[in-house]
């Protein structure tokens, strides 16, 4: 066995291959030391083998942690997942001794809630499942494991409630997972893009780090995908409403949370349409404003040398680079970017006569109301949506914006999330209820 393994692997310092003998037998073991917990290796294999209190082949046979491996083709991948491979009397066994370096189950950072649970999912799938199971103590919780990625062999786990899950959605998810061709799968977003098509303007799968959102979704019959190595779970199917819905909406005061939901919708409409409307109204239909506003805009714009759409592009470029810069910068100098960009550039751009004062307000409304969307992947998709609307606004004014919004609405109503209508605002997708569970995958 050892010869075969050493030929399989490139020359690697951390690949340990030993041949050991005691009075009774000779065994061979192979493992990658950096992936394994060496104390486990010694506790389970080395020590009992040397002490000889019990015949070693007996131990291996009785302990269910030692799995018999029949197929030599699996050896390499088994070793690479942190298993010890050992050959005892011609039989090959594998023992899980994996040691995974991961973040200690951290506090929620991407999707925070004030009065909600503060624990996020873990980067280790087993820990995540632990968190989810303890929040969802139901015997109906089913799990299927799959591996995706021809190189990365990323383990993913499909979680669903056996009784509430919609079998059509489940089979669609399974078949889509089956058809994914990818070398490396590193992050949840990658899988989301593979599952829902890369050209989609809006996400149809929620990416979340919140275990309470996961538990809620499971209870509503949704399917949750967990990836080894990322702390985000994928939830499908999802409606537009659910992207607009923060977990806080169930925890805080009823009336205020309804207000906040309205506010989020309003914010989304503003952030998508404001730049386009600015161009359309300034350059085509100034009679839309009240007189006072029209005059003050005309006054503040009279120093601006460029047409309105150049002005919009300047400001949008500035705000987008600001957001991008504050994301890319190391945390310690991150606040510099906001200070320089927000205060100095914004004020100076207006005083220099590069943009009008109204444009500064438009830009900040666009940026801020973009951030009220609670789910991050939706927030980023919406950040893009204002650009397609600007084009018709430049050429056709208010008519163009109207047609653009209409086209956008058509697109949204046309979207389906795993067969479920996406743009249903009233009421989330209902859970599927049946008295017996689903048939598991054959």
């Amino acid at each position, binding site marked *: 066995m050892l010869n075969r393994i050493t030929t399989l692997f490139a020359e690697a310092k951390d690949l340990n291959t030993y041949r050991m003998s005691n009075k009774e037998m000779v065994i061979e073991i192979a493992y990658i030391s950096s992936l394994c917990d060496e104390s486990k290796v010694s506790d389970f294999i080395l020590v009992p083998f040397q002490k000889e209190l019990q015949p070693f082949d007996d131990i291996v046979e009785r302990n269910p942690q030692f799995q018999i491996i029949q197929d030599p083709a699996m050896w390499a991948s088994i070793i690479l997942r942190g298993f010890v491979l050992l050959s005892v009397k011609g039989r090959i066994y594998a023992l899980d001794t994996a040691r995974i370096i991961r973040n200690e189950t951290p506090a929620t950072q991407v999707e925070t809630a004030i009065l909600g649970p503060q624990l996020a999912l873990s980067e280790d799938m087993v820990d995540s499942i632990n968190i989810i199971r303890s929040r969802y103590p139901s015997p109906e919780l089913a799990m299927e494991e799959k591996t995706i990625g021809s190189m990365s062999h990323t383990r993913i786990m499909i979680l669903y409630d056996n009784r509430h899950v919609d079998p059509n959605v489940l089979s669609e998810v399974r078949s889509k997972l089956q058809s994914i061709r990818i070398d490396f799968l590193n992050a949840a977003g990658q899988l989301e893009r593979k599952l829902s098509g890369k050209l989609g303007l809006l996400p149809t799968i929620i990416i979340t780090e919140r275990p309470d959102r996961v538990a809620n979704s499971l209870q509503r019959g949704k399917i949750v995908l967990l990836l080894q190595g990322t702390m985000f779970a994928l939830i499908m199917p999802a409606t537009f409403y659910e992207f607009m819905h923060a977990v806080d909406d169930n925890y805080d005061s009823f009336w205020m949370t309804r207000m906040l939901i309205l506010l989020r919708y309003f914010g989304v409409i503003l952030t998508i349409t404001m730049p386009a409307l600015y161009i359309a*109204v*300034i*350059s*085509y*239909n*100034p*009679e839309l404003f009240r*007189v*006072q506003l*029209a*005059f*003050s*805009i*005309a*006054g*503040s*714009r*009279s120093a*601006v040398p460029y*047409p*309105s759409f150049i002005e919009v592009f300047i400001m949008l470029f500035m705000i987008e680079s600001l957001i991008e810069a504050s994301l890319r910068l190391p945390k310690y100098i991150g606040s510099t970017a906001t200070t320089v960009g927000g205060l100095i550039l914004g004020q100076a751009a207006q005083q220099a006569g590069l943009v009008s*004062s109204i444009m500064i307000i438009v830009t900040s409304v666009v940026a801020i109301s973009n951030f009220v969307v609670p789910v991050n992947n939706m927030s980023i998709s919406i950040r893009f949506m204002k650009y397609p609307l600007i084009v*018709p606004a*430049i*050429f*056709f*004014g208010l*008519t*163009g914006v109207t*047609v653009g919004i209409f*086209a956008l609405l058509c697109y949204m109503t046309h979207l389906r999330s795993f067969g479920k209508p996406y743009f249903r605002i009233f009421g989330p997708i209902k859970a599927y209820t049946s008295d017996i569970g689903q048939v598991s995958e054959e």
Partner: protein
Amino acid sequence: MRQNKLIQLAIVLPILLATLSGCGFKDIDKRFFVVAAGIDRPVNNPNRYLVTLKLAVPSPKIEPGSAKAQVESVEASTIAEAVRLIKSRVDKELDFGHCKLYLLGDRLSSQYYPDAMDWISRRRDIQNVAYIAIGRPDAKTVIEMNPPTERFPGNTLFLQLGKDGTESAYIVPVFSFDFIRKAQERGIDPVLPIMNKEKEEYVISKLALLNKNKTVATLSPNETEIYNQISHHMKKSTVTATINGQSLVLAVNKISSRYRIVKEANGSHILKMKIYISGIFEEAPLGVYSSNWSKLEQKFNEHYEAEANHLLTKIQQAEVDPFGFGLRYRATHAGSDQTWKAWLSIYPQLKFEIKANIKIDGTGISD
């Protein structure tokens, strides 16, 4: 196949859009906003038009007295030509989108006004909610004036005529859509407020009665108030009566009126109008609280009935119908030309029977 469809869509959509879009791309700072327009007949050349436009000069600061406006006026044989000539004198594109006031000169409105209204009703960028008024002595003088405390050009006009600012019983704002409608409808005739220039102020307290072609009569401020009460149920108004040489003034709280046109046994028609008004004293001698209110109310009724009767008779004698009595008659009778002809013969002989019912609600804060 799918791609073909996408390409088709990409071609068709812009073409459709291009046919829909209105005026071209023009930034707001490259436009000259007209805030008021006046249309006159010149004194020495009564067949031509004198068009006066008040153009707002925008400034980023809005302070009292900071309003700057440029006034352009040009004489031409048509209004459209005059506007084009003004365009050749200014540096920015004219935009009527914010023009809230169209003033017809007194001379124009007392000759023949439909031509000017035709121009106002046809232009796409002229708002239907613009106000129409008559400028005295002519539109140009009124428009040229710059009220010294204006915050931005035209603001005084907008506030004075609209309901945002002052609400006066003597001002009857008339929207252009309303005016155009009334100028064409059989059975109702338009009215227009008259704007005077007095020192550096606009004075709007009179009402002109127009038939389908020209001004035929002018109502005094007092008559304007009664017209406003009967026709628009204007609450911020007063009712006055003189009792024993002392004048008592009632501030109106509630007002309503209704009327019926009744055919008498002898074939003549009577218009029976009932007016209900209740209000609180604003001016009254001390001790009015303990006096007999029903007697006071009686006096008010008599006084009001006489005034209203006088107004209606005056309107009738001017052969116009701003209340829309004829429209009511047409609406409640068979819809044939015969009805309209019948009304034309009824109206000059119509008798008015007005019953006022004025109620005193209180004497104000002092007794």
